[in-house]
């Protein structure tokens, strides 16, 4: 027995130490994203709209220009608990006004806070990790121009064990995959842009792709549709076996909110369309091209 313990205890210590190292938050290189100069506000606004920041970070029920006050407070129910979007307005105390460009880059690319804590993936850094450097610099410039709000951020309502931030390091090891789902370097300009808008900024897969029991995206059923994380209803699949809309239909839906049957978009998609309506016609066409290029889902089962 003593002999066994002699082996097991050091093994456990090594394993714990290894786990501690492996779950450590990563960050961008020390000399990366050090110069916010040159960030273009206009381009940043497009990044902001394409990434849908306001849809989650505006105050609950905000409309019109109030959507640009990123006070936070909206609650997002999930099987793991309810996540509350924080204040990301330029207020230095309650928002992110004291963040450096590097802080923003670490949040978007690594899902890590300035204090070095892991963010919950309700903040879709799993998608934003594919953002281009210039877009992050431009977004940083744009965010500075928005009104500050002194509304304090509220805590998430997440139970044990999901409330242990360090455990998210393990989650990231398992499910944080930064590679493109639609593979290939010769997609052409339109599809490459569409892929960037869908997989990175638009983070469409975060809702339209089913998740496993630990909340990791099932990339083998990319965009195959999924149960709504709130527990009520389903989010439709976009694969060609499930969506017969033409590219024109898709682009027009993203512009006007009208389906081909001229019903109006509802639920969270209505908020998405408020953003896509502000994009250029070329960008909406690029998103449509990407959706039309999706392969059929491996199984018809949309995950229940």
């Amino acid at each position, binding site marked *: 027995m003593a002999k066994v313990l002699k082996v097991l205890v050091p093994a456990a210590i090594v394993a714990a130490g290894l786990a501690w190292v492996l779950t450590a938050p990563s960050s961008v290189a020390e000399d990366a994203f050090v110069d916010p100069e040159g960030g273009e506000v206009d381009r940043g606004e497009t990044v902001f709209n394409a990434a849908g920041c306001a849809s989650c970070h505006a105050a609950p029920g905000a409309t019109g220009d109030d959507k640009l006050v990123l006070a936070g407070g909206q609650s997002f129910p999930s099987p793991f608990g309810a996540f509350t979007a924080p204040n990301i307005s330029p207020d230095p105390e309650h928002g992110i006004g004291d963040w450096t460009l590097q802080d923003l880059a670490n949040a978007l690319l690594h899902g890590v806070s300035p204090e070095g804590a892991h963010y919950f993936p309700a903040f879709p850094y799993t998608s934003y990790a594919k953002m281009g450097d210039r877009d992050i610099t431009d977004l940083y410039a744009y965010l500075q121009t928005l009104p500050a709000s002194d509304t304090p951020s509220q805590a998430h309502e997440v139970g044990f064990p999901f409330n242990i931030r360090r455990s998210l390091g393990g989650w990231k090891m398992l499910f944080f995959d930064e590679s493109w789902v639609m593979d290939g370097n010769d997609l052409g300009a339109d599809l490459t842009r569409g892929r960037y808008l869908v997989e990175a900024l638009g983070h469409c897969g975060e809702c339209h792709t089913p998740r496993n029991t630990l909340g990791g995206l099932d990339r083998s059923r990319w965009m195959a549709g999924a149960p709504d994380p709130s527990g009520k209803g389903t989010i439709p699949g976009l694969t060609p076996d499930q969506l017969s809309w033409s590219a024109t239909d898709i682009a027009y839906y993203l512009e006007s*909110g*009208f389906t081909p049957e001229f019903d*109006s978009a*509802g*639920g969270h998609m*209505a908020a998405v369309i408020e953003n896509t309506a502000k994009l250029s016609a070329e960008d909406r066409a690029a998103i449509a091209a990407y959706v039309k290029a999706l392969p059929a889902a491996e199984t018809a089962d949309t995950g229940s």
Partner: protein
Amino acid sequence: MKKIVTVLAAAAILSGGATVAQEYKNQIKARQGTMWVIALNLGTLGGMAKGETEYDAEAATMAAESIQAASNVHFASLFPEGSDGEMNEGSTAKPTIAGDLAGFNEKWAALGAAADKAVAEVGTGTEALGPVMGALGGACKSCHETYRIPQ
């Protein structure tokens, strides 16, 4: 005995529910018919806006007039209490409509205003279609967000 009473009571409640569903069948048909008149005519305008069909000022104006006519139905009168989607299969109307007729009428009037604008403008050229569709779509969305059960 107690068991039998429970079963009978449950059956009575269930059949009662079914009677309610029958009672408002025609209102639901009328509501959805009104929506379809609007949807099909939006399709005419939208086809031209998308460039899928050639612009035709006369056809566009007729479509707008049909939407306007539908918007003149006193829509709230088709939503009596108990005719909502929680009580009736096939309906997606929220039960909150009956208790908030003022709000419901306001949203419906906004559709009327957008339809009036459509009638006045869609005949003037293709460039009018975008803003008109935007206004009509805004009215649809605003009411659906508040008073329709999400699917």
